[in-house]
């Protein structure tokens, strides 16, 4: 190893959990490979026996150790490396940045200061304001009283969550004062030391973008547009690349502000920014920044062909984007379309509500690729285990707030041949709007009720939107659990239902789905 250019320690991501999955092992492995290819000695620290990063020949040396400050420092004492990389091991690794920096170790890539600026809410907001980048109104509070004042000021609905969260833990959309009071009682209990963040909930499309920066240039491999509207956690949302409905104005704003943020944060390597594009004003507002490799890195790497981790690692080792043949801006999109979809493990977990919200619930993801959007959507749906029914019975239980929007979706299902069943209120609403629907008994109305109907497997698809009414919600959760038990697709977001219609149109269109390798999709040119 005498001819090696130096020695670098890569911090891994530990056990697979909700919010921190296999993507980060993918990133760690690619980082190690990039280091070795660049002539460095790569050392990995990780404790997950299921992964490629802990395979015996991935790194030059592997330490099978806990990822705590103590255990990592012990290894660094022994190895005395030229640098440590914390950007690829998810939140586990990034959390070590501060102690590493304090102890005087060299962190390669974005500095500890840059990480702190991105993660410290107050500092980050100040920075956005200085740069003139829009973000949802909001503030951090430390008491329940303050929370109520802030919420009145920015107006309900508000998104509440504790600061420093992983995978949207204990995050909720709150519509009323009573609910906020209840949340504060509970949330303060969750993390007594950290403040609670209260933000204006903005109805709109979510999008996210990964940025690779060398401090001078910023490459954006691609923007992913979320299919479910703001409020569903990005890890639980289906997402499409390239964006299908974002306006050019919104895309330009995202490219511009993401670049501004990356330069201001002095990012060296990867960064991820989440946006909400306000439906009312069509402006892209920044939701959060992760100063590290994100969940979408392996997806975008494969779709665009840019070896994102390798490029980022080379930057950390001193190369520029230009040295590597890349320039600033949004990378040109290929001709193919890719849809990423979440996969849940609800079958295995009883008493867990399957309704989608700001808290992440999925355990994994898959991707569907094809040459047009409906077909890619269809593939993503079947690959994620949704047994796409092309007809049969649809059961709809729609919250009052969603009824107007749901009518057109359900009408469409009715048109393509679904028989519609609905709870009384929903059925009445549908009928008054000209959609034929059969009423179903409520749970407390004895035998042959809605849950019996689901259990008897007479239903092929359920659309159940979440109500803010607690009594209705109790029934809703029983309906959703029953759906899990008999393995009937149950969609809790109207956006997913609309996507399913789009996917079904691909099936009905009858043209054959594409079948191509990753490389072939990359080089596909639409005719």
């Amino acid at each position, binding site marked *: 190893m005498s001819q090696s250019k130096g020695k670098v320690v890569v911090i891994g991501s530990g056990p697979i959990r909700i919010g921190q999955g296999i993507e980060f092992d993918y990133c760690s492995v690619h980082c190690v490979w990039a280091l070795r290819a660049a002539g460095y000695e790569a050392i990995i620290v990780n404790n997950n026996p299921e992964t490629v990063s802990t395979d015996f020949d991935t790194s030059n040396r592997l330490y099978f150790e806990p990822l705590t400050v*103590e255990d990592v420092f012990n290894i660094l004492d022994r190895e005395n490396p030229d640098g440590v990389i914390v950007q690829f091991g998810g939140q586990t690794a990034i959390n070590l940045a501060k102690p590493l920096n304090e102890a005087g170790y060299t962190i390669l890539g974005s500095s500890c200061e840059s990480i702190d600026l991105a993660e410290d809410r107050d500092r980050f907001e100040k920075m956005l304001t200085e740069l003139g980048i829009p973000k949802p109104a909001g503030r951090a509070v430390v008491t329940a009283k303050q929370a109520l004042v802030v919420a009145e000021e920015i107006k309900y609905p508000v998104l509440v969550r504790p600061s420093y969260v992983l995978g949207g833990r204990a995050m909720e959309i709150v519509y009323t004062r009573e609910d906020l009071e209840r949340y504060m009682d509970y949330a303060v209990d969750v993390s007594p030391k950290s403040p609670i963040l209260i933000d204006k909930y903005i109805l709109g499309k979510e999008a996210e973008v990964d940025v690779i920066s060398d401090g001078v240039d910023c490459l954006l491999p691609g923007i992913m547009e979320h299919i479910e509207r703001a409020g569903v956690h990005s890890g639980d949302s289906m997402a499409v690349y390239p964006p299908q409905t974002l306006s050019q104005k919104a895309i330009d704003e995202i490219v511009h502000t993401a670049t501004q943020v990356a330069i201001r944060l002095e990012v060296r390597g990867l960064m991820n920014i989440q946006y909400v594009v306000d439906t009312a004003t069509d402006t892209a507002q920044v939701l959060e920044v992760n100063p590290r490799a994100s969940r979408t890195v392996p997806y975008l790497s494969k779709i665009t062909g840019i070896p994102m981790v390798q490029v980022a690692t080379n930057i950390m080792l001193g190369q520029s984007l230009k040295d590597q043949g890349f320039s600033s801006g949004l990378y040109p999109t290929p001709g193919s379309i890719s849809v990423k979809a979440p996969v849940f493990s609800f079958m295995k977990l009883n008493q867990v509500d399957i309704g989608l919200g700001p808290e992440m619930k999925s355990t994994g993801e898959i991707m569907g690729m094809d040459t047009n959007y409906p077909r890619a959507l269809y593939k993503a749906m079947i*690959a994620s285990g949704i047994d796409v029914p092309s007809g049969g019975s649809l059961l709809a239980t729609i919250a009052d707030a969603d009824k107007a929007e749901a009518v057109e979706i359900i009408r469409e299902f009715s048109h393509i041949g679904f028989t519609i069943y609905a709870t009384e209120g929903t059925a009445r609403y549908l009928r008054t709007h000209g959609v034929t629907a059969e009423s179903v008994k409520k749970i407390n109305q004895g035998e042959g009720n809605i849950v019996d109907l689901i259990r008897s497997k007479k239903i092929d698809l359920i659309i159940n939107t979440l109500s803010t009414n607690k009594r209705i919600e109790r029934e809703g959760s029983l309906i959703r659990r029953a759906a899990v038990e008999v393995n009937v697709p149950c969609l809790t977001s109207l956006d997913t239902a609309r996507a399913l219609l789009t996917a079904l149109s691909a099936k009905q269109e009858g043209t054959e789905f594409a079948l191509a390798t*990753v490389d072939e999709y990359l080089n596909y040119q639409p005719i």
Partner: protein
Amino acid sequence: MPRDPNIKRVMVIGSGPIIIGQAAEFDYAGAQACRALREEGVYVILINSNPATIMTDTEMADRVYIEPLNVEFAERVIAKERPDGLLATLGGQTGLNLATLLAEAGILEKYNVRLLGTPLASIRQAEDREEFRTLMRELGEPVPESWIVTDESDIQPAIDSNIWPLIVRPAYTLGGTGGGIALNEKQLREITKRGLALSMRHQVMIERYLMGWKEVEYEVMRDANDTAITVCNMENFDPMGVHTGDSIVVAPSQTLSDKEYQMLRTASLKIIRALGIEGGCNVQLALSPFSFDYYVIEVNPRVSRSSALASKATGYPIARVSAKIATGLHLDEIENAVTKKTLSCFEPALDYCVVKFPRWPFDKFRSADRTISTQMKATGEVMAIDRSFESAFMKAIRSCEIGIYGLSNKSTQQLSDIQLEEAIRVPNDERVWAITEAFRRGMMIEEVYALSYIDRWFLRKLQGLVGLETRLKLNGTAISRMIESGDQHIILEIPSNREDFEKTDNAEKSQNGLSQHHLAIRLIREAKRVGFADRTVAEFAGVPEMKFRTLRKSLGIVPTYKMVDTCAAEFEAATPYFYSCYDSENEF
């Protein structure tokens, strides 16, 4: 036999998305297999719907398809790529099921694709309940008595068997709701009736209840030449009744006598031979804690989560060797990639202890039912290696990133005595902390055993750790005083051996320092040896962790690093990996 020259193009099926029960282990196995095949000059065609995997990198296979894993798309890949072989035992249950469907639909035959490695008949024989039981009976290997019941009147044979207790499991209900344990005929009738009503298929399985039996697994390999070896055996900390994926697991087994170890090893090798498996296979067995009785519970005729763990625990790459076997090679023709000196027919030797700890998602799903049983709930796992069970166990806990760094957990400390007993009796994600809390409250080993049936050897280890924890707490002030006084330089030279120390000149000079501190120092040394975190000791001493770390280092109490080399240092390893321990000699 040298590698089969007819195998030129091989299709590999991945395992799809990460779900509970099927995590990153199949990316590890698949990536290893792809590389192993390409080393043999095979053209590899891969299909997997999960792009967040190394195996779907274009460098790993010649053709990478990110397409849905169903018959329709798999057939189209086969039609387009025309592979000669299909390797299906590396993609978990998803891969195996898809391969079975392709075979049953006649697609493999139509395109003349050979299923490589373990034959389909063997897979069926291992997976079909009746076929498996018949084979075991032929081999004279015991399987637990069981009956499938679809009507209350069917239970007479179970009653006549006079086996008690029996466990009743309704088929196709989530989390086994509606099941139960019957100690007598009356209870059996009641539980069966309830279970049938709750089961969607109106079916229950009645089985001999192996309460308190040890659960042991063997990872075995076999080639077409009928050479078969044991890669490693593993013992579940939790007795029968908890899914292996939700169990704390140790490798190698710690509480088996040599006779028991050999008996189960012989049974496992007999089974892999009888099934005709070509590649890796996992055998799960239940062993009576009171006698030499055992039962064969299950066989996984494929690479699994357990085999990934066994590979990492021993350094023996099971997936890689399985892929090589699939190309026709025999174990004595495959190089051990870790030592590059030995062959794959050498059984690995371990000179350390490995502990696997599950990582559950209950931090996210606060409303979820936290009891664990036969339905797996963990999303992932961690592995720790050390010289003793205690230290590996302690490392595994802090690897989980659940805000717990040792033996204490706030929520179990708040339980009443009765609640605590319940938390030990009914397995759940916090059981180990319920046990340590019970020892803290003075409960005896026998009491905890009667509640949990966890082997007394494990319980004694935990009790010993709690004892040391108490001593650390009592000496917290002494440790903090040592830090405050800053006179640790006096004792910097103290060797771990007291006698040696007393012989040195230094000893006389720092006699005061010694008398003041040597007990505390010995305690720190002991605490580190069994795996207590700096953070825990610092907390007991009421000092910041970094201050304690500085003290510890100044006392010369630093870890050494040992190597995992598959052969207990008999040969030199070429691609080693390391684990820390507070032992004397570095293998670095």
